[in-house]
């Protein structure tokens, strides 16, 4: 499937399926035979965005690789909730080694597959590495940068929930400014995660000039599937960062997971775009522009910004970050976008 705007068919391509579309135009998730890579019975929290994002991404990768896929997984919620010994929720070959080495493990698998193919053993097996934002942007960053720099044939997927959720919501370098975590408490003159720290790894990945970098959220399934499919069609190092809201760590209602991902995109807080060889190629435009408060106020990690004396100046700084994203990635709402 490709990212195309369907001429008005009641819901266009916003919904998962659409009975008015030809079956081949529907999403992977609409299919009764989807892999369900991450099967029922996993121990993720109610409404876990990471569990959802992983199934979305890996099911699409399974279609794109015709079922020939191996995943290497970093330590983190996704690993812990899916594989308590001896059970597994994974319906694909899957390996866990350490917190910080998923990219290196995947590189090794890719190298082994290459050698086997050269020896005429085994077919075209593709490799995905996946991990949380902590495992990716912090402890696994060295291995990841190496994988990029060597242009290893791996798709690395980072499930960004903005913190070390599995160990009790500590700050990571992907935690947003002002957010409360166990290690950035809402105390003192600048409560929550300090401004001016952290990093946006998609931009760093682009600086490696790798063939493909993209961001996505669990609120835009068709876009997410399109990007995974496109990435799987490319050889070399590829990186996708998916925003996956975490009801527990964000202090949000379990039914609001997709809503929050949507608001992150619609406010400009999380830019959704794709880049090839270091250049931005397209961005998902904002459809219904909203102020950042709409996103922040649904989450207890930002509760200290609201209440009797709202932290107007802090909210304005977050709005400025969003506005900068809108400018930098060209996210302005366009007339005629459905």
């Amino acid at each position: 499937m490709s990212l195309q705007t369907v001429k008005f068919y009641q819901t266009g391509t916003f919904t998962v399926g659409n009975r008015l579309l030809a079956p081949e135009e529907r999403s992977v998730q609409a299919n009764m035979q989807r892999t369900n890579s991450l099967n029922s019975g996993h121990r993720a929290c109610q409404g876990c965005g990471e569990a959802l994002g992983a199934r979305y991404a890996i099911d699409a990768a399974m279609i794109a690789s015709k079922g020939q896929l191996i995943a290497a997984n970093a330590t983190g919620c996704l690993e812990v909730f899916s594989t308590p010994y001896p059970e597994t929720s994974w319906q694909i070959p899957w390996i866990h080694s350490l917190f910080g080495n998923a990219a290196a493990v995947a590189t090794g698998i890719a190298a082994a597959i290459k050698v086997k193919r050269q020896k005429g053993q085994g077919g075209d097996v593709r490799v995905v590495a996946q991990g949380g934002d902590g495992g990716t942007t912090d402890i696994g960053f060295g291995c990841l940068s190496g994988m990029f720099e060597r242009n290893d044939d791996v798709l690395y997927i980072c499930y960004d929930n903005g913190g070390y959720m599995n160990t009790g919501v500590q700050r990571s370098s992907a935690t947003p400014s002002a957010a409360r975590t166990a290690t950035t408490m809402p105390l003192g003159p600048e409560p929550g995660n300090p401004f001016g720290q952290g990093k946006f790894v998609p931009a760093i990945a682009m600086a490696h000039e790798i063939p493909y970098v993209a961001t996505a959220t669990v609120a835009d399934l068709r876009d997410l599937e399109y990007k995974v499919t496109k990435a799987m069609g490319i050889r070399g190092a590829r990186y996708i960062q998916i925003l996956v809201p975490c009801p527990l760590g964000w202090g949000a209602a379990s039914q609001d997971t997709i809503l929050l991902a949507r608001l992150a995109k619609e406010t400009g807080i999380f830019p959704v775009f794709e880049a090839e060889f270091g250049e931005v190629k397209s961005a998902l435009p904002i459809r219904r522009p909203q102020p950042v408060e709409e996103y922040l106020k649904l989450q207890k990690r930002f509760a200290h910004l609201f209440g009797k004396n709202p932290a107007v100046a802090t909210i304005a700084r977050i709005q400025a970050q969003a506005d900068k994203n809108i400018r930098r990635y060209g996210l302005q709402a366009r007339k005629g976008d459905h």
Partner: protein
Amino acid sequence: MDKPFAITLNPGSSLANHTGSWRTSRPVYLDRLPPCNSQCPAGEDIQGWLFHAESGGYEAAWRHLTRDNPFPAIMGRVCYHSCEAACNRGKIDEAVGINSVERFLGDEAVKQGWKLAPPERESGKKVLIVGAGPSGMSAAYHLRKLGHAVTVMDAGPYMGGMMRFGIPKYRLPREVLDAEMQRIVDLGVTVKLNSKVDNILDEMKQGGFDAAFLAVGAHIGKRAMIPSGDAARIVDAISVLRSMEGEDKPLLGRRVVVYGGGNTAIDVARTVKRMGAEPIIVYRRTRDKAPAHDFEIEEALQEGVMVKWLSTIKQAGDKEITIEKMALDDKGFPQPTGEFETLEADSVVLALGQDVDLGLLNGVPGLEVTDGVVKVAPNMMTGHAGIFAGGDMVPAERNVTVAVGHGKKAAKNIDAWLSGQTYAPPPKHEVAQFEKLNPWYYADAPKTVRPMLDIIRRQSTFEEVQGGLDETTALFEARRCLSCGNCFECDNCYGVCPDNAVIKLGPGKRFQFNYDYCKGCGMCVAECPCGAIKMEAEEI
């Protein structure tokens, strides 16, 4: 032990872990009542028939629609479509053009010659219907479908009642009316025209009828006391409109004053305009207080009909009339100002409302008549057992759709009554309010506007003013429906569940929850576009 190093257990599946036990509330599928359906006076399942139309299944849509209302082509022209005012899409952009799709389906049925299904069995009971207007013919349809032998008697020379002798051709072409009336006759309904019923009890006895439904409408034009000279020509609007259907067209002169502010006043003014006269409406209150629909006033003004708001007729003479200016008081009632004006007038047409001719009910015991209309119980039965009534002759809003709804409701109750039972309508689902929807998912799509006849032809001919949609625009319009409260198989629940706890049953079969694994997060409920899932507390 041939397991790898440090491994003692075989790999297992997480399916062994029934996470459903975490749940404190559970999602359940339900059908909510779409606001359009809830509003429709004829009780149409609008969302239901639009669903078929969305995929191009026009005949299925028409069959679904005519379960409740056999006259979609008429409805698509004269119904005031209060459904559209209730439509949830109005809160996103503009209401779905329900009425224009309905007309498309009705016209398509006429074009393709679709026939209504005959009754499956004969009941052996005989029902008399008095009046071949919308209410009587709707009752005839439903009673016939239920297997009863139906005879309709009407005083007039054609079927249709006020739809033929009141509503002008430029809004309802007679071929359309005839086609939908004839379809009822084709079901095996006997219609006797030019057959006035003078005494209902005698008529029932003579014909051996087991029950009767009365729908004689309201045809007597109300008069007003206007001091007038002998030569003044004062007529009532209903007679003028009625005479349009016959050979002798009314002679009203050039300057025609129409007195009243309702739909009839507008129709009569627009009619005389088309006959080459210069109509001027005189109404005692303001435009926003007039009972006529604003779009009708607008269309009349476009066609060159003049209006004197806040005016009453004081005196009518042979070539002119005197009007007095009115002013609204604090309560919004018009009060005389003592300021007068004369208007040139060859005739005055009174359009002040209609009364019911209850002559056929003389001597019927048990009836209760209040304010000139016959009281009916919630089952549409009058105070006299076995005689039911509906439409304009009972206390209700007076329009075609209400009349059709009465006919259907009466038919169901007559059917039950004939077998000594009482009809219990199925319980209504809760209404799918806008707050229950997730409007994000619907693509932007502005309403399709129906074409209007050009103004010159609107001033001089009786050609139909409003055009219909064609296939593509009708399909587009149908697809604007949000399917409020009713699953349209968008696969959202199946997609968004982080626990794969939704089972997709396949096209047309909807979905099922797998409560072994559903953790009760509520995401499926939040992301269901149309509000067809709700959370229910789990009994713990």
